[in-house]
């Protein structure tokens, strides 16, 4: 028995800010003090509060240390672990109260959260199967294989109301049912997992893979049993090396323990799985493209029907689910459909994980019951907008989604409500924007992404989106006309209706939603030739005010020598030369330069 546990976050955010060094320093410092039999160090997955990383939690006290550095480690060991004196200066401010330390669950960040998919992230060591087993891991698989028929499994998932977390929200039980029944005499079926996580500003699936890989393995085996498949494939982005490594370790361990392989739990059921790496193509997140890619080809989408439940991977009936979808499955089996469906709204059950980013204090991962409002997520959990700036929009659904303005902040989040306000759930990216973000520029940002990622197979998407981007670019350069707005809208609907796959069908959404809610910003670019947020470079200009002291600093630092003026006289900017880099504003100590 250890008297203390030190949990150190090994998630991507904290690893990037040096948590691996902190971990090794902690281990050697503990040895130095002769505490190795009393204190156990555990490397965990993401805690969610990545903004405060690197993060460390010491139990039994539950002290939450944030922004820890290697230099802090000796002090933590000699003061806290040796003498029992908490290092107050490193504590997360929110947890410090007048009468001592508040538990993490009572902080604003965690209070409104409810962790189902992320329940083990930041709690167990993902590289040790025994820690997963100790928290009821593989009990659901055991229950399914020894007590339930495949139809009963599907029934529970159907009744729970679980819908796909990868984007479209298709009922998971329904998908499994189709794959089980559509081709009764299939000689082979496959279970696939979509861990391609293509939304360019999101990392939920990555955190599950890194923090709780066994949950995915267990769920895929359950899905295999339900549909009658013996082989699984996880398609992971190659950009996620830590996730791939932990998943590999987890698969190996599961095989060693007989939880993958032949005759699992002596039930006669065989199931094994493999990992395939993506290679940087967003379209491969689309289900048919993903399967084509696993088959070893250019990842181009195929027309549907036939749907994968009938003809999927290698032409066999297949199920594809998202990582987070799977992460819910073992809990549903253990706790029952009613438990799951008691959370959420009428048509969207359970919880949803969001990657909260952008202009928000607590960037990180949050999991909330469906039906939580955007305002609760942004203001209560996220801690609001930093630097006293004003909220402008929340973006969900990534390149397929839309921007939600302040007037809809009290909308309870679920699949249907988000669609109704012109966005979508998507996989869970939630990016907050403030008054300094230009909505025309954001629409252009997403469209550049989709144009770049279009596979080019069908014309509406390949040509249409390019045209749309040209129109947008024209507007950001102050060369647009009001007729362009109508043209754009028309083009958007044409692309949506005529594209072959989801990429093209949803690509115009960021444009449509910003046109709907922020038309005034488009008009300002077109009529006033002005970018209200001061982002579109072609439309901003820098000017020196009469308060200029003539100190020459700006002129000396302008990269293109656009500023002239004599010492102690007012300086001027040659607009024709200026490249709008903004360096002069930062250089002026007298606030004499403004951006217009």
């Amino acid at each position, binding site marked *: 028995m250890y008297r203390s546990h030190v949990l150190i976050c090994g998630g991507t955010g904290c690893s990037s800010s040096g948590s691996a060094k902190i971990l090794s320093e902690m281990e050697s410092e503990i040895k130095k003090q002769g505490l190795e039999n009393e204190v156990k160090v555990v490397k965990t997955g993401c805690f969610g509060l990545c903004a405060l990383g690197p993060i460390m939690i010491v139990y039994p006290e539950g002290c939450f240390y944030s922004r820890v550095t290697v230099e802090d480690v000796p002090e933590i060991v000699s003061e806290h672990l040796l003498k029992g004196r908490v290092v107050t200066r490193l504590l997360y401010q929110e947890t410090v109260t007048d009468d001592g330390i508040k538990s993490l669950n009572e902080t604003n960040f965690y209070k409104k959260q409810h962790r189902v998919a992320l329940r083990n992230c930041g709690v167990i060591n993902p590289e040790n199967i025994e820690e997963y087993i100790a928290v009821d891991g593989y009990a659901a698989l055991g229950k399914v294989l020894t007590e339930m028929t495949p139809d009963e499994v599907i029934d529970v998932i159907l009744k729970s109301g679980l819908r796909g977390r990868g984007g479209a929200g298709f009922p998971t039980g329904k998908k499994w049912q189709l794959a089980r029944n559509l081709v009764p005499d299939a000689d082979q079926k496959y279970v696939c997992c979509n861990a391609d996580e293509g939304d*360019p*500003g999101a990392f939920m699936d990555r955190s599950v893979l890194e923090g709780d890989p066994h949950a995915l393995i267990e769920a895929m085996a359950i899905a295999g049993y339900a549909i009658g498949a013996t082989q699984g494939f996880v398609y992971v982005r190659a950009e996620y090396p830590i996730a791939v490594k932990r998943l590999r370790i987890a698969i190996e361990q599961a095989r060693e323990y007989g939880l993958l392989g032949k005759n699992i739990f002596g039930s006669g059921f065989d199931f094994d799985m493999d990992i395939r790496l993506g290679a940087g193509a967003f379209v491969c997140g689309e289900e048919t493209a993903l399967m084509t890619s696993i088959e070893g080809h250019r990842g181009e989408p195929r027309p549907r029907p036939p749907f994968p439940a009938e003809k999927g991977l290698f032409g066999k009936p297949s199920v594809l689910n998202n990582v987070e979808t799977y992460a819910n499955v073992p809990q549903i089996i253990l706790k029952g459909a009613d438990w799951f469906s008691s959370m959420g709204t009428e048509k969207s059950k359970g919880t949803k994980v969001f990657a909260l980013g952008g202009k928000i204090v607590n960037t990180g991962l949050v999991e909330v019951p469906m039906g939580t409002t955007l305002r609760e997520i942004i203001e209560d959990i996220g801690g609001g907008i930093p630097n006293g700036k004003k909220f402008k929009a929340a973006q969900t659904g990534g390149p397929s989604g839309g921007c939600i303005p302040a007037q809809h902040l009290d909308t309870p989040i679920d699949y249907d409500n988000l669609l109704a306000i012109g966005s979508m759930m998507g996989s869970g990216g939630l*990016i907050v924007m403030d008054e300094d973000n230009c909505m025309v520029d954001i629409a252009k940002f997403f469209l550049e992404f989709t144009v770049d990622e279009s596979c080019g197979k069908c014309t509406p998407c390949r040509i249409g989106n390019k045209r749309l981007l040209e129109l947008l670019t024209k507007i950001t350069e102050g060369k647009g006309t009001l007729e362009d707005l109508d043209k754009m809208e028309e083009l958007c609907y044409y692309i949506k209706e005529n594209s072959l796959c989801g990429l093209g069908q949803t690509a115009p959404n960021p444009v449509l939603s910003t046109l709907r809610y922020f038309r005034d910003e488009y008009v300002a670019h077109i009529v006033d030739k002005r970018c209200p947020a001061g982002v579109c470079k072609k439309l901003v200009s820098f000017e020196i005010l009469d308060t200029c002291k003539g100190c020459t600093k700006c002129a000396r630092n302008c990269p293109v020598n656009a500023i002239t003026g004599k010492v102690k006289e007012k300086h001027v900017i040659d607009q024709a030369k200026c490249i709008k880099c903004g360096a002069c504003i930062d250089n002026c100590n007298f606030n004499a330069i403004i951006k217009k």
Partner: protein
Amino acid sequence: MGKSTISKIPFKGTAEQEQKLREFIAANKGMQGALMPVMQEAQEIYGYLPIEVQRIIAEEMNISLEEVYGVATFYAQFNLNPKGQYKIGVCLGTACYVKGSQDVFDKACSVLGIGNGDVTEDGKFSIEATRCIGCCGLAPVLTVNDDVYGRLTADDVPGIIEKYQKM
């Protein structure tokens, strides 16, 4: 998507590299959908996938060079040209973008004097715009090989690059 440039840099593969690749293919070609894993391993071995390497793959896998080339050009991660000794990546994912990573990227390009996807003449640096690398909490982020720099402004960029210039 759609890259089609063929490397002008002379191919300098060694016999050991070639043997390693051929052995990997022999051991794995029976696997379903083996082409992608084989190409990923080849890129691991050589650092990029010049036409010479694609030819070995086609030959060993008994498929046409067109097919290998088609796959190599479809996926952004297969490099037809060698990368720099220090690979700089600037995240242009949404979370980083709204926090000004475009300025960081532009600055890095102007300091190095190269554009997206290019390599400096001395082969020391290459630069690429990347997508979310999962550290949005540190946005905006820049990576140099495996090192991650977060919470940056454009002004931090010259200092970071200088550090590697001296290595």
